[in-house]
């Protein structure tokens, strides 16, 4: 290794030289707002050196959930480790870097979701853990972005659009992702018409949050190139399964999978049991973050392969936490799957609260309740209460109420994001409540 210069200098040098060598004409600087929307501004190579050295200033008041007017100026500092040439711009002359947002005096901005996740990961690192995430990302392709979802396939015998049309879109997306250094393990058509799934290879949580934001954009870009529309809306079709973001989670201590315990009949360590117990215990509080839209709760209803009760099980598709069976000897793949989040969450914040909930269970040695299979669905409400089984929040208002009183979520998100998130989402709920829906018009207008 060249030890004459520090690693940050070498990283900057790498970016500058690559831009020069590869004829990059624009560099997009990326970050997300509190809701997870990707924000981007493009700079030319001439501005790059200054951007890398000092960061680029922008007006924070223009970004949802960022600064109040009094603290308007923000700096976006590109993270050179995330430099990637974008595969879908013609000619390959555009690259991107994720940014960390700092205040003019150089301190991390507390409203930056990437910083929130970093802070939570640092806390896990202090306890000796690194946090890994492998997501299953579901989404729909529709013919256009109009207000009526038009599916591309219904799987009927004589459909003009055969089922495998979408295979091509999926393949192009996977190729684009591979070029972006995001390996796809598995991809397939999902249960619902026009619904698809991409399973990404696990990485550390910060990289994965970056990867998910990138993947959402790649899926939409490739769809647009084909003249169709891709959406991560949790429940676009009333009568079919919605789109989930099942998250496979594990903690490692150095080279060791901290979730694995060979002598346990389930292969789960005390750490894993504590983590699951923490997730179950705090599930209600963190759901507003993992399922942040009014529409998210249309997915979390019975009968559509989505979890509604705060239970865990080994191989049951209705449980909130599932423990997948791992192949014999595959110690490293011991993991748990958290099944309620949806793909329209802000992954930085969702990973933060999930980690905080799990770690609370580990640190305080919460006791894991017994495994609960599909029986939970046939139990009466009274039986469930007697067994101590709670339901996930039924709508955004319930979820916000559970979050409001959660010290755990406040600590994980930090005061700034916590308070802005609640204000913003309460407003969304109020707007929704004032809305007279098609359901009401169709059901009530003719008869009342």
């Amino acid at each position, binding site marked *: 290794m060249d030890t004459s210069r520090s690693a940050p200098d070498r990283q900057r040098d790498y970016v500058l030289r690559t831009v020069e060598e590869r004829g990059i004409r624009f560099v997009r600087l990326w970050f997300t707002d509190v809701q997870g929307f990707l924000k981007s501004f493009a700079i030319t190579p001439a501005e790059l050196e200054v951007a890398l050295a000092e960061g680029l200033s922008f007006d924070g008041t223009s970004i949802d959930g960022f600064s109040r007017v009094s603290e308007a100026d923000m700096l976006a500092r590109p993270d050179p480790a995330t430099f990637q040439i974008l595969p879908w711009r013609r000619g390959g002359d555009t690259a991107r870097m994720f940014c960390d947002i700092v205040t003019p005096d150089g301190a991390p901005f507390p409203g930056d979701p990437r910083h929130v996740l970093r802070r939570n990961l640092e806390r896990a690192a202090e306890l000796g853990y690194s946090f890994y995430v492998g997501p299953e990302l579901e989404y729909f392709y529709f013919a256009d972005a109009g207000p009526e979802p038009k599916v591309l396939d219904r799987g009927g015998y004589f459909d003009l659009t055969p089922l495998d049309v979408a295979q091509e879109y999926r393949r192009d997306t996977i190729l684009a992702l591979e070029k972006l250094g995001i390996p796809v393990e598995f991809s397939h058509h999902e249960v619902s018409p026009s619904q698809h799934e991409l399973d990404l290879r696990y990485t*550390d949580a910060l990289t994965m949050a970056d990867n998910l934001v990138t993947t959402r954009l790649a899926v939409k870009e490739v769809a647009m190139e084909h003249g169709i529309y891709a959406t991560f809306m949790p429940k676009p079709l009333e009568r079919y399964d919605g789109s989930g973001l099942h998250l496979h989670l594990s903690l490692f201590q150095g080279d060791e999978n901290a979730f694995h315990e060979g002598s346990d009949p389930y292969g789960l360590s005390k750490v894993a049991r504590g983590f699951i117990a923490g997730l179950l215990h705090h599930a209600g509080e963190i759901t507003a973050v993992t399922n942040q839209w009014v529409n998210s709760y249309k997915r979390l209803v019975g009968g559509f392969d989505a979890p509604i009760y705060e239970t865990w099980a080994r191989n049951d598709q209705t449980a909130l936490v599932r423990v997948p069976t791992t192949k014999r000897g595959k110690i490293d793949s011991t993991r748990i799957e958290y099944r309620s989040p949806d793909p329209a969450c802000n992954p930085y914040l969702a990973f933060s609260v999930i980690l905080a909930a799990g770690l609370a269970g580990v640190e305080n040695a919460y006791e894991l309740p017994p495994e609960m299979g599909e029986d939970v669905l046939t139990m009466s409400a009274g039986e469930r209460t007697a067994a101590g089984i709670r339901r996930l929040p039924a709508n955004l208002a319930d979820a916000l109420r559970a979050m409001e009183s959660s010290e755990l979520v406040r600590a994980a998100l930090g005061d700034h994001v916590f308070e802005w998130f609640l204000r913003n989402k309460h407003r969304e709920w109020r707007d929704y409540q004032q809305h007279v829906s098609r359901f009401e018009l169709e059901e009530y207008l003719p008869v009342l």
Partner: protein
Amino acid sequence: MFVAVYPPAPSSALTAALLGAGFQPVPVDDVAQVGTREPEQGWVAAVVELGDDVGLGALVGRKIREEHGIGVLLVADRTVTADLGEFDGFDDFVLTPIDVAELRVRLGRIGSKAVLDSAGDEVLRFGDLELNTSTYQASVGSRPIDLTYMEYELLRFFVEHPNRVWSREQILSKVWGYDYFGGSRTVDVHVRRLRAKLGESRASWITTVRSVGYRFG
């Protein structure tokens, strides 16, 4: 470019030939000193001059190769060429009297060497892989490959330290540095990506050594 030379008092002909071929000989008393005397930029290779006891020299060569993961060149008298067939654990050999040009070529092939390209940039080569250490660009078969900074640094580390097993923790501390909280599984993720980007026929350059780590070359 440094080469470790055993025995510690080599023939003057060998020393002269090494210097003539552009290498800096560093005598080592035993196998362990190959580790303690390693210069900052690493060894190109080790050169073992076989004496009367061919077996002893060959054994030292094999141990250097196994324990320090560097290539070994034997220097043998023409009379013992046939005996060399009985030994393994070396990469190549030259016969005395030593031809300086031959020595340069053979040592050059053993060490994954840095050469200067036409623009005067330092280029690391392995097979048809080229890493330009000035521009941070990588190519295989003269086709550029897009590497992130960490992928580039990891590949460079491997190319500069071939034939040696590294644990994930070692790789993490040497390539990522100590302040990284991504954890050692991150190494697996990057190795997987490097293999994919290098292409199927070159993916086997990086071998997984079960329950230890990785080896390149």
